[in-house]
């Protein structure tokens, strides 16, 4: 469904993405993991067309993404930090998106809107919302149009445990509908129950893209966090790796 070929991107001195090749298919839940500044967000933004790659190509449904923006109508994107117009009211925001996407009311997925009880804050301006509430709005927007591809950048960061659980259930539900879901997260225990594949990035290079079964078999570990840690330790890729905590490596990229 998404095919990435020889994708390269350089920000001044920093190699953000170096020759990435990957193929993501329907029904997969891909976890993008890697230290800070390893290029996860850059990869996601390249798929969305927000970052223009230096070379290489991305195909969504066999069509290359440069040029026609209509492919984005199949993508629901939840950004790491949601930026919204300050003066816009929450209800207004949802209305506007509906107008832009031209989706009929019947096709909308208002599940999260109801579960997060966002309807009650429809008349509040976006600037008055707390960080967590913003995240809820972002999540509800990403799922709102029932897209075939969901791209979630750190979806559970900043959410309270209850909301985080609701979101995870929703992701599992969507996974059952045979959608492609891309998640980045540093909380590997969150990914454990969701993911089918793991893509590991480090300093802009793809170290591996494996399905979770193989990964568990190879490492002999059941938990994703331990499995990843094991691989890293064996390969001595990065001494800073400690179980489920991803080490902070300052490479200077704004994530």
């Amino acid at each position, binding site marked *: 469904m998404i095919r990435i070929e020889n994708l390269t991107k350089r*920000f001044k001195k920093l190699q953000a993405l170096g020759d990435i090749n990957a193929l993501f298919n329907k029904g997969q839940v891909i976890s993008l993991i890697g230290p800070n500044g390893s290029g996860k967000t850059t990869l996601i*933004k390249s798929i*969305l*067309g*927000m*970052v*223009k790659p230096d070379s290489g190509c991305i195909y969504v449904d066999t069509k290359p993404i440069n040029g026609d*923006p*209509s*492919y*984005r*109508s199949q*993508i629901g*994107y939840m*950004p790491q930090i949601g*930026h*919204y*117009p*300050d*003066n*816009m009211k929450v209800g207004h925001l949802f209305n*506007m*998106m509906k*107008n*832009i*996407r031209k989706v009929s009311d019947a096709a909308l997925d208002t599940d999260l809107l109801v579960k997060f009880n966002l309807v009650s804050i429809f008349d509040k301006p976006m600037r008055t919302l707390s960080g967590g509430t913003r995240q809820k709005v972002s999540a509800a927007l990403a799922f709102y149009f029932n897209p075939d591809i969901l791209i979630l950048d750190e979806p559970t960061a900043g959410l309270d445990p209850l909301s985080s659980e609701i979101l995870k259930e929703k992701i599992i539900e969507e996974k059952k509908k045979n959608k492609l879901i891309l998640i980045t997260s540093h909380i590997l225990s969150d990914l454990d129950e969701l993911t089918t594949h793991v893509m590991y990035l480090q300093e802009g290079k793809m170290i591996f893209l494996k399905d979770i079964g193989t990964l568990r078999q190879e490492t002999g570990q059941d938990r994703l966090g331990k499995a990843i840690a094991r691989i890293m330790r064996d390969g001595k890729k990065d001494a800073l790796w400690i179980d489920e905590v991803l080490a902070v490596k300052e490479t200077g990229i704004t994530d």
Partner: protein
Amino acid sequence: MLKLSRYVLYDIIRNKVIIAYSLFLFIVSFSLFQLEENDSKAILSLLNIVLIVVPLISMIFTTIHYYNSYEFIELMLAQPLSRSGILLSEYTGVALSLLSAFFFGVGVPVLLFAFDETGLALLFAGGALTLVFTSIAFLASVKARDKARGIGSALLLWFYFALIYDGLVLLILFSFSEYPMEKFTLLLSALNPIDLGRIFIMLKMDVSALMGYTGALYKDFFGSGTGIIFTVGIMLLWIVLPLWWALNAFKRKDL
């Protein structure tokens, strides 16, 4: 695309700066017409204000608006919308609101007190300058990396066009006063939209005799049909070229 412009307009109207701007212009023009006995003197004073204030406000307002709606632009980029569509609807929204503020603030008094060729020339020049400097400001803000640089370069450009340029022209004319410079000054005036606007109105006011030999030359050239077409054409170029450049830069930008 027009749908987006509607949201941009809605956002601008709510922030009230534009209303203050149109009220300011209205009060100034109204009181000038009341104070001066002679309407054409009032137009002359108004011309000086228009030539300084309109470019300045258009530049500053546009740059600040661009940076304030950065979040909005980011949000729109993840939707199935083309980049040029997004930037053009931003431009349409800003330009429309600045134009209507100008036509309300200056247009209404002019139509009431001095509805003649000179008045209309003033309205045309003011409207064109609004569009020109909105384009230039879009170029400055798309090219600049951050807010401070963007607003700084917009201010510098305004200084250049409104103040420095005239000094430079004087300097050139003075140093080469022994040579025939008529054609050359004609060219120089085309390189500054504010100058172009000034000459355009001056010639309609019969004060061009005060401008000496060059004035006569201008009158000879600009007074004729070709002269008017030339002025309008150059103004159009000043609107289209910076905007086109800004669009190209925006298409290649990483966000």
